[in-house]
């Protein structure tokens, strides 16, 4: 019927074919020492330099800590109570979530049409557009954030332009506010939204849209009833990526908040470096881990149920 459908069938056929041969192969190799060694080398490395340190961090958050004498006292949940009871700390958590959600929604709204455009063009045009979207990722995040700091200054270009066209009367005072952090984060993570979205939209058969059009659906209806529902896996992937990275972003909030407010990562840094309370810093880190893992779990679940729906629709 459609090209994507036939490639889907061809793909699964090829997979069955190679799957069979690789099954023979893996039956031969499954218990071989070579395979176990191959797996053990990177696994050991990551367990020693990544898994274990995080387990120790989690353990540390469950003990009270004295910077002079090291660990004192026994098992306690005090570090968590300390965080959960204090409105100031809960406020930091809320700022992080609020900024993350706003950035994600803005990136989705701004990025979706561009992802659609990217998915539906080809050749040189596509390569140029792709290069324009990817190229900011090549520039250090410190530098990208710094350029926003320069742009948004009261004496900076944005302020001058807005005053010249008389949208504002006094120099811009957005630096050191949450707005500045959001503006920069939306910019920093926009490519992370566009790329997974474009990949999924590309796999939606364009003839479906033509069919909807020939049945009398206008642009808007084609989008709402055909393209968007089928692109949900991409929406979920993009949102998950942007939300997790913006909630755990350090450099941008640190540079643009000017110390006027904290988010979770800057709070962690403050506890670790300035106040040297490692146990409390560890507890805040664990809260951040839980937040990120919850986001991942929610979006994976959403993406999975959406792709079930999607494959059901495409098969029909």
């Amino acid at each position: 019927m459609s090209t994507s459908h036939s490639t889907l069938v061809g793909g699964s056929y090829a997979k069955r074919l190679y799957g069979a041969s690789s099954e023979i192969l893996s039956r031969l190799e499954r218990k071989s020492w070579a395979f176990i060694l191959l797996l053990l080398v990177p696994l050991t490395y990551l367990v020693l330099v990544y898994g274990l340190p995080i387990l120790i961090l989690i353990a540390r958050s469950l003990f009270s800590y004295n910077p002079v004498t090291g660990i004192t006292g026994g098992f306690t949940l005090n570090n968590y109570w300390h965080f959960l009871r204090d409105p100031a700390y809960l406020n930091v958590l809320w700022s992080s979530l609020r900024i993350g959600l706003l950035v994600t929604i803005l990136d989705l709204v701004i990025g979706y049409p561009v992802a659609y455009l990217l998915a539906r063009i080809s050749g040189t045009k596509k390569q140029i557009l792709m290069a324009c979207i990817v190229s900011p990722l090549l520039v250090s995040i410190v530098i990208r954030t710094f350029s926003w700091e320069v742009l948004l200054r009261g004496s900076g270009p944005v302020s001058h332009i807005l005053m010249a066209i008389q949208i504002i009367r006094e120099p811009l005072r957005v630096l050191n506010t949450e707005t500045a952090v959001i503006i920069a984060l939306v910019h920093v993570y926009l490519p992370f939204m566009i790329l997974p979205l474009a990949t999924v939209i590309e796999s939606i058969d364009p003839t479906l849209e033509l069919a909807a059009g020939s049945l009398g659906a206008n642009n808007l209806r084609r989008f709402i009833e055909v393209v968007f529902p089928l692109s949900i896996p991409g929406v979920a992937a993009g949102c998950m990526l942007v939300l997790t990275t913006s909630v755990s972003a350090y450099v941008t909030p640190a540079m643009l908040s000017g110390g006027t407010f904290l988010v979770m990562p800057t709070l962690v840094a403050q506890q670790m470096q300035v106040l040297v309370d490692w146990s409390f810093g560890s507890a805040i880190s664990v809260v951040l881990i839980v937040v990120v893992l919850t986001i991942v779990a929610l979006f994976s679940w959403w993406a999975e149920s959406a792709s079930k729906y999607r494959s059901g629709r495409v098969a029909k």
Partner: protein
Amino acid sequence: MKVFSSRRLGWTVLWGYGFLVVAYLLTPLIVLVTMAFSAGGTMTFPPKGFSLMWFPAAISINGLVGSFVVSLELALLSAFFSAVLGTIAAIAIANRRFRGKSLVTAFFLSPLIFPTIVVGVALLQYYRTLRYDNVFMTLLLGHIVVTIPYTIRTVTASLEVFDYTLLDAARVLGADTLRTFREVMLPIIKPGVFSGAVFAFLISFDNYTVSMFLADAKNITLPIRIYNYAEASIDPSVAAAATIMILVSVVLFVGMGRLIGVRGLSKI
């Protein structure tokens, strides 16, 4: 006919919007680069006159060249080791079924979404507990952790199109495991290994959040140096330093594009 013209209008609007978003993405960087060529003493836009004076000034920023060398060594070594470890991991997990495979895969890729700042904090405590104080090594070990997922992903992607019957063929023809790997598998997955290594280089070169907990006075990486300097200075030398850094990244990326093509890049 009506449907057709409304479609065309839709495309025009879409392209116009696309240009706006690209402008939004690129403007901050263009403004910063423009400021690097200013003849004035402060960062104003449009810049006052044209001069190259801020480039020598950037290079003579205290410790900048040293930090560049530290970051370069760190990024090259991270790229190398994470390419080696990532390739091994990808070969081990690709196209095999074993108990706990999804768990192991998730663990291998988890540094991608795990808060980088927590990795930094955890490593700081870990090294202190072990009393391990070779700072460059602590940085390197940490950078390898955050770059491994990129090489695993690119190599896994190139293994997806790998025809495993080739291995059987090589074996039938009498090649041992090592030779099969070197002469059959490696040439085919090479683009994946290379692009993974370049990504690892860029991620390491740009890393701030892990490094900030581990760096000491002798091993200050370039992003930390620029961050500290940007906070303190008002003249365009930071913009010039940033322009040099952008140039280094672009050269690398274009080199990689030549190697594996833009289509290859877009798949990552």
